[in-house]
């Protein structure tokens, strides 16, 4: 059960991070969403054995984390928690793909190792960028941005409700499990106990939904959720989007590390 509690604590932390006033949180959520999508597509558009050419893209998550004052430890921990899947899916590459590839003067590596490295790098890039944006924006601004970009209202309302009541229902679930442990319940419950435990939680969910609905009706709810929140697009947002997209295009078009390396070593070509 500590799993549920720690997940809730995690969400709360992300929310607290997002509520601070930072250079990142001041940007319009639409700017951050659009730029991050461009970033994701740029990163995944590379061929599977790409490692070095991807390195310049690290700048984006690094810049986001700095602008949003996102704690590096937090990012690293989240990355580590999510990593096993990518490792699992990539680890077969070195075994399956043994085409030799020359990495440096006289050094060859199995293509599989290179593509494995590429998977890990892609994973780190995409995950840290997404997490930094979320930690520097927050669920509410994100939903407002998504709605403004044309996401169906039903869905953004659903996201907000889910977000709000995860804290309430998650707390109830955590307390039920604590009560079970306090009375000597150890390990995972049997299916019968689970059915009753989660079942009661489900029942409470239904009852809660009914009460919320009544409370909404009492305040004039007519099917549409209105908000006084407005988004403001400023020149800063235009600069953010245009600047980064230009960088992604440049990094995709020019093999930046090689250019840099040639400048530094004097090798022409």
């Amino acid at each position, binding site marked *: 059960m500590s799993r549920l509690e720690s997940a809730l604590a995690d969400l709360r932390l992300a929310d607290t991070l997002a509520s601070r006033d930072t250079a990142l949180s001041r940007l319009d959520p639409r700017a951050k969403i659009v730029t991050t999508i461009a970033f994701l597509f740029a990163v995944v558009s590379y061929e599977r054995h790409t490692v070095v050419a991807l390195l310049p893209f690290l700048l984006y998550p690094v810049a986001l984390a700095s602008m949003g004052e996102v704690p590096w430890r937090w990012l690293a921990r989240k990355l580590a928690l999510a990593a096993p899947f990518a490792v699992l899916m990539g680890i077969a590459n070195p075994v399956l793909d043994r085409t030799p590839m020359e990495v440096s003067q006289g050094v060859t590596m199995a293509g599989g190792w290179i593509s494995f490295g590429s998977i890990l790098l892609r994973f780190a890039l995409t995950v840290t960028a997404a997490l930094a944006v979320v930690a520097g924006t927050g*669920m509410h601004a994100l939903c407002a941005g998504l709605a403004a970009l044309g996401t169906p209202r039903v869905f953004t309302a659903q996201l907000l409700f889910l977000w709000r009541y995860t804290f309430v229902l998650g707390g109830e679930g955590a307390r039920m499990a604590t009560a079970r442990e306090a009375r000597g319940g150890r390990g995972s419950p049997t299916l019968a106990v689970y059915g009753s435990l989660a079942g009661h939680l489900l029942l409470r969910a239904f009852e809660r939904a009914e009460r919320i609905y009544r409370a909404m009706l009492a305040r004039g709810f007519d099917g549409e959720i209105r908000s006084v929140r407005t988004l403001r697009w400023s020149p800063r947002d235009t600069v953010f989007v245009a600047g980064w997209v230009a960088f992604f295009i440049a990094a995709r078009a020019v093999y930046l590390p090689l250019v840099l390396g040639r400048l530094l070593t004097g090798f022409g070509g």
Partner: protein
Amino acid sequence: MSDHLVEAIGLSYAYPDGTTALDGASFRVAPGESVAIVGGNGAGKSTLLLMMAGLLEANAGEVRIGDVSVTPGSRDLVRRTIGFVFQDADDQLFMPTVQEDVAFGPLNLGVSAEEAASLAATALDVVGASHLADRPPYHLSGGEKRAVALAGVIAMGPNVLLLDEPTAGLDPAARRRLIKLLQAFEHTRIVATHDLDLVLDVCTRVLVMEGGRIVADGAPDAVFRDEPLLARCHLEAPLRWQG
């Protein structure tokens, strides 16, 4: 501010499973009056409040506000006139931030966004919660949640306030602040509660419910002296009278 007579006439209600919740409850509340509804668990208090707000339809009987009968057809008028503060503030506060939540009701009444924002600011000021405006509701304490829920209701400018267990789960300081607030209101107030000390502080009249019926109606000072009645209704004399 309060110029509507609130009237319940022979209200009856049974749950789908057949349990009787209300059994012919009738009473009348004058404009500006502050009335408590007390009774044990399952006496029908919450059902009664839901019905008065038009959120539950009676099997028999009627609720009247002024000369309008509360029906699905008069929903618009009812929601402008009656404000309902629910027992669990978590049920009521669902918008991303306190400010947005308090503005939710006014926006539904059709006012402009600016006007709704200003109504919300005023209401938050009344309950002393202006500093919470940008916070998300789940980061608030119990007392803060209650205050914000109250603000969300008074921002709609109701004449009548229905409050379900307003002091449940509050610490003594938060409870005291809420009582002061309720005392200051000029709205018609109908409070369902187990907190008889709250009744002494806030209400001038008390209705005692038992088994879906109103079994006593009078001044709190008099009603709470009737020990056999209180015992029968699973109640106890106010704490300040004990010991």
